[in-house]
C-alpha cells in the first residue's frame, strides 16, 4: 500500500470556503431554496426511495470479501490522507448504493460496449447520455452526494445527478476503448446546473470561413492605368467619415451587447461540486486530453475556465487524488497519472515484470496500454497475496434496448435553453408530422419575441427535411432531401397562394430539363438551368399583370397569364464560331419581334445581332421574305446581307421555337401549381413511411418475417431434434431398438457420461499443453534476451518487448480458459446427468434408480 507523502499543497479553495461559508451561508440557503423551487416546478419530484430494490441481484445487496478488503484499504488510505492533508475535504470514496450498501466508486464503473455504432465514438456516447438522462441537481451543491446508484438503476429511471451521469458515460467510454476517468471536482454554476442560457446555441454557430488565398504572381507586363482624375483629398475625407461612423456604431453595438449579457456574480464560485469525465490522449487515436461535460455532452479543453478544480479521478481499476494546486482552475494541471508527485494513487501500480527483466528502469513508453492492462491482470492471479487489484464491478451488465436507444429522451422530448434560443428535441415518430427538432431563435434574452423558427423533420414522405420560418420577413423556407417528385430542394415563400412571390431550387441533376432555380412573382418568372445540352442557362418570362379571361373553356386550367416576352440566355458553345452562337434571344410576343444577340468574337466589343419583324397577315401572302423583315448587324464583317434563304430558314426555326417556348412556360407554371398542390395535400395528411428494415414499427414486414421464420421452423422440425440428440450415437451402438430395457438404459447413461467426461478432460489437457508450451517459449526467449541484452539494438529490443507482450497475452488467455474449463466442468457434467435423467427414453428406467 502506498504511503502518502508530505507535500506542499495549496489549500486555497478550502480556506476560501471556510471564510466564505460563514459569511454567505444564508445566501446559499436562499439560493438553494430558489434552485430547488425552480426545478421542482418543471420536474415532478421523483422519489428515489420508492424504487424497488428487491429485484436487484445479490451483488447489489452485499459485499464480496474482495470488496470488503477494498473498502478496508480505502478507509486506511483515507485515514492517512486526512492525516496528511487535514484542510482538504474528505474524499469521495465509498458512497452508499441503492440497496444501502457501501460500494467503492471504482467498482461502480462497469465498462460496457453497447451494440450501436453511434456509441462507438465518444461524441455519440456523450450526446446519448445527455439526451437519455434527465438532470437532477445535487442535494447539496457544495458536497459530493452520499449516495451513488448503479448505472443500471440510473438507466432504468432515466435520471440522475452529475455523478450518475459521469459514471454511466465513463462506463460506456471505457467499454468503447477510451482511456476515460470520472472526475470529482469543482465547476461554475452554469456547468453544475446545466444552465446554457449564456451560451450560443451550437446550431447557430457560424462555420468559420476559410479565406481563400489566391496565389497568383503578378505579371511583369502590365499597362499603366490612365491618370486618376479624382481628388485624393475628397477620398480621404470620405474614408475618415466612414471610419468614424463605423466606430460609433460598433461602440453602440458593444454597449448593447455588454449590458444585456453581464453574467451574475456567483458567491459560491469555486465551491460547487461537479462530476465530469476526463479522456486521456493515447487510446483510440485521441490526440489531446479533454473533458466531457456529461450534462451537455460537449467536449471542453482541459484549460477551459469553467472547470475550477479537481479533487480526484477514478476509473474501473484505480483511484487517484489530485495533489496539484487548483487555484487557477484546471488549466495548469498535468494529467500524467503515473506521476506520483501530481497524483496520489490508491492501489499501487505493480512494478512491471519486463522492467525487472531488463534490469533497468525503462519508462513504459515502449509498452502499449494493452500490455499494461494485461500484465496487471496476470499479476492478479500470480501474486494475489502480495498485491491487491480492484475487485470486479458489482453492477449488472448495462443494457439499452433498440427502442430505448431510439426514443432517447425521457418522455421522448427534451428542451434546452440557450442564449436567445430554445432547442426542443423529440424522438422520431413521436410527433405525427415527423418533427424531431425545433430551434426557436429570439430577438431578446428573455425569450419573448420570436425571430426565427427552425424545424427539423425525419421520415417524411414528402422528403421535407427542414423548415425555416423567419418571423420578421414572414418568409418560409422548406428544405427537402433528394427524392421529391419534382426534384425540389429548397422552397422559399410567403404564402401558398399561387400568385405570391416564391423561389424554388431544385436538384438539377435529377431533372431532365436541368432546372436549378425558379423565381416567380406576380408578373415575371426567372428560371435558371444547369448542364443543358443546348447551353441554355437562363429564361426570363414576363407576364401581363392582369389576367385575361380565358375563353377556352374547359380545355386548360384557367390559370394562365398572357406572356409579354420571353428572354433566354445561352452559354458559349465552343463548337460553333462566336458570331453564329446565339448568346441571348428575346421573343417580344406582343410586338411580334424576335431579337437575337450572338456571342462576342475574340477581342470584339460589339456583338452581332439579328432582329426579325414578323410579317402581318396581309403582307405574308404576297412575299415570303423581304430584306426589311430583318435587321442584321454583323460585327467585324462588311458584308451587309446574308442570303435571304438563310434568314428565312432561321426565321422559320425561331417561329417554331417560340411556339414550343410558350408551351414550356405553361408547363413550368403548371408544374409550380402541381408542387403547391402536393404541398398542400401533404400538409393536410402527413405520412411517415416506415423503412422495411424497421421491424419494430413496420407491422406488415414484421408479420411477414415472423411468418417466414415459422414456416422455416415447421419445415425442418425433425432435423432440429436430431441435431440435439446426444443419445443418438450410443443408441446406434446398441442397434437403435424400439424399446430400451433398464439395463440398456443404465449402460446408455454411463456411456454417455463417461464419454462426456473424456471429452472435457481431453479438452483441458489440450489447453494445458498449449499453456505449458507458451510458458516454456517465453522463458527461453527471456533467457536468450538476457544473455544478449548488451548487444541488442534499440529496434531489436523493441521487437523483443512486443513479442514478449504478445506471448504473455496468449498465456493469459490460455490460463483464463483453463480456469474456466475447470470451474464449469462439474456443472456441465451435472447438467448432462440431469438431462439424461429426464430424457423420455430413459426416464422410466432411471427414475427409480
Amino acid at each position, binding site marked *: 500500500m502506498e504511503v502518502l507523502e508530505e507535500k506542499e499543497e495549496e489549500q486555497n479553495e478550502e480556506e476560501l470556503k471556510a471564510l466564505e461559508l460563514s459569511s454567505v451561508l444564508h445566501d446559499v440557503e436562499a439560493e438553494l431554496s430558489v434552485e430547488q423551487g425552480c426545478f421542482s416546478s418543471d420536474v415532478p419530484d421523483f422519489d428515489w426511495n420508492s424504487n424497488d430494490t428487491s429485484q436487484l441481484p445479490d451483488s447489489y445487496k452485499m459485499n464480496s470479501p474482495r470488496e470488503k478488503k477494498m473498502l478496508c484499504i480505502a478507509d486506511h488510505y483515507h485515514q492517512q490522507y486526512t492525516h496528511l492533508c487535514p484542510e482538504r475535504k474528505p474524499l469521495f470514496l465509498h458512497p452508499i448504493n441503492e440497496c444501502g450498501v457501501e460500494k467503492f466508486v471504482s467498482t461502480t464503473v462497469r465498462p460496457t460496449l453497447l451494440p450501436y455504432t453511434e456509441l462507438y465514438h465518444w461524441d455519440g456516447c456523450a450526446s446519448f447520455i445527455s439526451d437519455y438522462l434527465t438532470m437532477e441537481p445535487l442535494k447539496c451543491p457544495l458536497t459530493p452526494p452520499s449516495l451513488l446508484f448503479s448505472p443500471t438503476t440510473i438507466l432504468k429511471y432515466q435520471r440522475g445527478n452529475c455523478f450518475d451521469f459521469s459514471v454511466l458515460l465513463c462506463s460506456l467510454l471505457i467499454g468503447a476503448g477510451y482511456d476515460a476517468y470520472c472526475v470529482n471536482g469543482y465547476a461554475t454554476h452554469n456547468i453544475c446546473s446545466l444552465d446554457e442560457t449564456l451560451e450560443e446555441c451550437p446550431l447557430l454557430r457560424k462555420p468559420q470561413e476559410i479565406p481563400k488565398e489566391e496565389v497568383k504572381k503578378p*505579371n*511583369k*507586363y*502590365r*499597362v*499603366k492605368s*490612365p491618370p486618376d482624375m479624382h481628388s485624393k483629398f475628397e477620398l480621404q475625407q470620405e474614408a475618415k467619415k466612414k471610419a468614424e461612423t463605423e466606430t460609433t456604431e460598433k461602440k453602440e453595438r458593444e454597449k448593447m451587447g455588454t449590458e444585456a449579457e453581464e453574467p451574475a456574480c456567483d458567491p459560491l464560485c469555486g465551491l460547487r461540486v461537479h462530476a465530469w469525465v476526463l479522456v486521456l490522449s493515447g487510446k483510440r487515436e485521441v490526440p489531446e486530453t479533454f473533458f466531457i461535460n456529461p450534462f451537455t455532452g460537449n467536449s471542453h479543453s482541459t484549460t477551459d475556465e469553467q472547470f475550477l478544480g479537481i479533487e480526484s479521478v477514478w476509473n474501473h481499476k484505480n483511484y487517484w487524488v489530485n495533489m496539484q494546486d487548483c487555484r487557477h482552475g484546471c488549466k495548469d494541471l498535468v494529467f500524467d497519472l503515473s506521476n506520483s508527485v501530481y497524483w496520489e494513487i490508491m492501489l499501487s501500480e505493480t512494478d512491471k515484470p519486463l522492467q525487472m527483466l531488463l534490469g533497468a528502469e525503462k519508462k513504459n513508453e515502449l509498452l502499449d496500454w494493452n500490455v499494461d492492462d494485461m500484465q496487471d491482470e496476470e499479476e492478479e492471479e500470480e501474486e494475489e497475496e502480495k498485491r491487491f487489484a480492484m475487485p470486479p464491478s458489482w453492477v449488472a451488465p448495462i443494457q439499452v434496448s433498440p427502442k430505448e436507444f431510439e426514443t432517447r429522451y425521457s418522455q421522448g422530448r427534451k428542451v434546452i435553453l440557450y442564449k436567445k434560443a430554445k432547442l426542443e428535441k423529440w424522438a422520431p415518430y413521436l410527433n405525427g408530422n415527423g418533427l424531431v427538432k425545433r430551434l426557436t431563435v429570439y430577438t431578446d434574452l428573455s425569450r419573448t419575441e420570436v425571430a426565427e423558427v427552425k424545424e427539423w423533420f425525419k421520415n417524411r414522405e414528402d422528403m421535407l427535411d427542414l423548415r425555416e420560418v423567419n418571423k420578421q420577413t414572414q418568409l418560409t423556407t422548406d428544405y427537402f432531401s433528394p427524392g421529391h417528385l419534382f426534384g425540389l430542394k429548397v422552397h422559399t415563400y410567403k404564402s401558398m397562394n399561387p400568385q405570391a412571390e416564391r423561389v424554388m431550387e431544385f436538384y438539377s441533376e435529377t431533372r431532365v430539363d436541368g432546372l436549378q432555380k425558379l423565381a416567380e412573382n406576380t408578373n415575371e418568372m426567372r428560371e435558371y438551368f444547369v448542364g443543358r445540352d443546348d447551353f441554355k442557362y437562363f429564361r426570363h418570362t414576363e407576364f401581363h399583370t392582369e389576367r385575361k379571361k380565358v375563353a377556352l373553356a374547359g380545355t386548360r386550367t384557367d390559370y394562365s397569364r398572357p406572356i409579354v416576352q420571353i428572354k433566354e440566355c445561352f452559354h458559349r458553345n465552343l463548337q460553333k464560331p462566336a458570331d453564329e452562337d446565339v448568346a441571348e434571344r428575346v421573343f417580344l410576343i406582343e*410586338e*411580334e*419581334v424576335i431579337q437575337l444577340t450572338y456571342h*462576342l468574337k475574340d*477581342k*470584339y*466589343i*460589339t456583338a452581332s445581332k439579328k432582329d426579325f*419583324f*414578323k*410579317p*402581318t397577315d*396581309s*403582307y405574308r401572302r404576297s412575299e*415570303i*421574305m*423581304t430584306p*426589311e*423583315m430583318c*435587321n442584321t*448587324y454583323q*460585327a*467585324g464583317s*462588311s458584308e451587309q446581307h446574308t*442570303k*435571304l*434563304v*438563310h434568314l*428565312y*430558314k432561321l426565321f422559320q426555326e425561331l417561329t417554331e421555337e417560340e411556339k414550343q417556348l410558350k408551351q414550356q412556360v405553361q408547363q413550368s407554371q403548371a408544374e409550380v401549381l402541381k408542387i403547391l398542390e402536393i404541398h398542400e395535400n401533404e400538409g393536410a395528411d402527413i405520412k411517415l413511411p416506415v423503412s422495411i428494415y424497421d421491424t419494430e414499427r413496420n407491422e406488415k414486414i414484421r408479420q411477414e418475417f415472423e411468418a417466414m421464420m415459422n414456416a422455416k421452423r415447421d419445415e425442418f422440425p425433425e432435423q432440429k431434434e436430431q441435431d440435439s440428440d446426444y443419445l443418438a450415437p450410443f443408441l446406434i451402438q446398441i442397434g437403435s431398438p424400439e424399446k430400451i430395457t433398464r439395463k440398456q438404459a443404465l449402460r446408455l447413461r454411463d456411456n454417455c457420461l463417461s464419454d462426456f467426461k473424456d471429452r472435457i478432460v481431453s479438452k483441458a489437457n489440450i489447453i494445458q499443453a498449449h499453456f505449458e508450451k507458451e510458458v516454456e517459449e517465453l522463458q527461453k526467449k527471456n533467457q536468450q534476451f538476457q544473455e544478449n541484452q548488451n548487444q541488442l539494438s534499440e529496434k531489436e529490443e523493441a521487437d523483443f518487448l512486443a513479442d514478449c507482450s504478445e506471448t504473455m497475452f496468449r498465456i493469459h488467455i490460455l490460463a483464463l480458459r483453463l480456469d474456466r474449463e475447470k470451474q464449469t466442468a462439474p456443472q456441465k457434467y451435472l447438467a448432462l446427468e440431469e438431462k439424461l435423467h429426464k430424457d423420455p427414453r430413459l426416464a422410466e428406467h432411471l427414475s427409480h434408480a
Partner: protein
Amino acid sequence: MSQSDNSFEPNVIDDEMLQKAVEEQWPEDIRKLAKAEGINFEDVMELQLSFRNILQIDNLWQFENLTKLQLDNNIIEKIEALESLVHLVWLDLSFNNIEVIEGLDTLVKLQDLTLFNNRISKIEHMDTLKELQIFSIGKNNLTALENVVYLRRFKNLNTLNLSGNPFCNEEQYMLFVVAHLPGLVYLDFKLVSDTTREVAISNYSYLTDLLEHEEAQALAQLEEERAQQKELEYHKTAFVEYLNGSFLFDSLYAEDTEAAKLAYLPGVDDLLQAYRRDFVSVCEKLFNYGLKEYEKREAEVSDFYEGLQEVLTANQEEGRKIILDFENQNKTRLDEIHHASSHDTAESMRAEYNKDILQLSEALMTLEMQMVDQLEELIKEFERNIAVIASTFIENVKGMMTQCRNLENSHHEKLLEISINIMEKALKNELDEELPDDVREFLVDKNTIVNMVNKSHNIHLLKISERESDILLNTNHWEASVKEKALQNEIDRNRSRIKEIFQYIDDLQKQLNNTDSRAPGLGLPWAGQLP
C-alpha cells in the same frame, strides 16, 4: 423527276442537272426565294444525284461544304473528281459499276461509305479514312477473305456489310471477320452476339495474336520515331541541335582526309582522344545552356502574351460595358422617334439621338487610343527584354565557341610538334613503328607535313565558325520574328477594332435614318397604327 433521267442515255453531271437537283431538295417557299436570289453551290450541304444514269462524276468542285452526297443507282465506273469535297461525311456510291476503290484519299472526314452492288474485287486505297464508322461493300467481287484484315486500321468501324460477296460462302467467313475486327457491332445487318465473338476469338487467336503483336510493334516504333523527331525539333528551336554528344566533333573530321593520315602517327591517337573529350564537354555545356536559354525565352514570350491577354480582356470588358450602357439607355428611343407626335419633335429627337451616337463613337475611340498608347509601351518593354535575352545568349555562345577554338588551336600546336618530331625521327631512320606507305610519303620534308597539319586545322576552324554563325543567325532571326509578330498583332488588332467601331456606329445611324424611310405595311408591328 424529268423525262431525261429515265432514258438510257448515259449522262454527265452538268450545271443544269445540279441546279435541278439542288432545287428539288427544298420545299416550295424556299425554292422560290432561292430562285429569286440565285443559288450558291457553296452553301449546299447535301446533294442527291440518284437514278440519273450518270456515267462520269464531274463538276462537283463548287460544292465545297457538302457533307452528304448520294450518287447511287447510276452507271459510274470510276471514282473521280471528288477531291475537293473534303467535308464529306456521307458518300453513297451503291449500285454503280465501280471496279476499283480509289480517289477517296482527301475525304478524311468520311464516316459512312457505301459501295454496295459494284464490281470491286479488292478493298484498298482507303488508308486516310480514319473516321470511317459504317462501311458497306456487299454484293461485290471480293474473293479473298484475308482482304478483310485491311479493315483493321479503322478503329471506329462498327458497322460492316460484306454480304453477297463470293467469299461469304466460305465456311469460316463469319468467324474470321469477327475475329479480325473486334470493334464490330453489326455485321451484315445483324448484331454480332457475344457468343459469336468469343468463339471467333478463340478460334483465330493464333492469327489475331500475331497481327496484334505486329501492330503493337509498329505502333511502338512509330511512337519512338515521333518522340525522337519531337526531341530534335525541340533542340532545333533551342538552336543547339546535334550539340549533345560528339556530332560536331565528328563533323570536324568528316571531310578531313589529312587528319585520318596523321592519326597513324604514334602519340596522335592519345592526343586526339583527349582533344575529343574536352571538345565534347564544351559542346555539352553549350547544349545545356542552349536549352536553358530556350526555356527562358519561351517564358518571356508567354509572360508577355499572358499580360497582353489580361490587358485585352480588361479592355474588351470596358468597351462592352460602354456599348451595353448605351444600348440599354436607348432601347426604346427609335420607337419614340417613330411615335413622335409631330414631325418637328421627331426631328429634334433624331438630332439628339444622333448626337448621342457620335458621343458613343467618341468614347469608344478614346478608349481605343488609350489602348494603343498602353500597348505601344508594353511592346517596347517586351522588345527591350527580348533584345537583352538574345544578346546575352549570343555573347555566351560566342564565349563557348572561343573555348572550342582554343581547344582546336592547342591541339593543332601539339599535333604539329608531334609530327615534326616524328618526321625528324623518320629522317634519321629512328622510327620503330611500321607506318603505312602513304603516311611515310609525307614524312619527307617539313613543308609538306606543316601544310598538311595546317590544312586540317583550317577545316576544323571553318566548321566551328559555321556552327557558331548558325546559332547567331537563328537567334537574330528569332528576335526579329518575335518582335515582328507582336507589332503585327497589335496593328491588326487596332485596325479591326477601328473598323468595328465605325461599322457599329454606321449601323446605329442607319437604323436611325431608317425610322422615317420605312414605309408602312412592311411588317412592322406598329405599321398598322401609323396615321
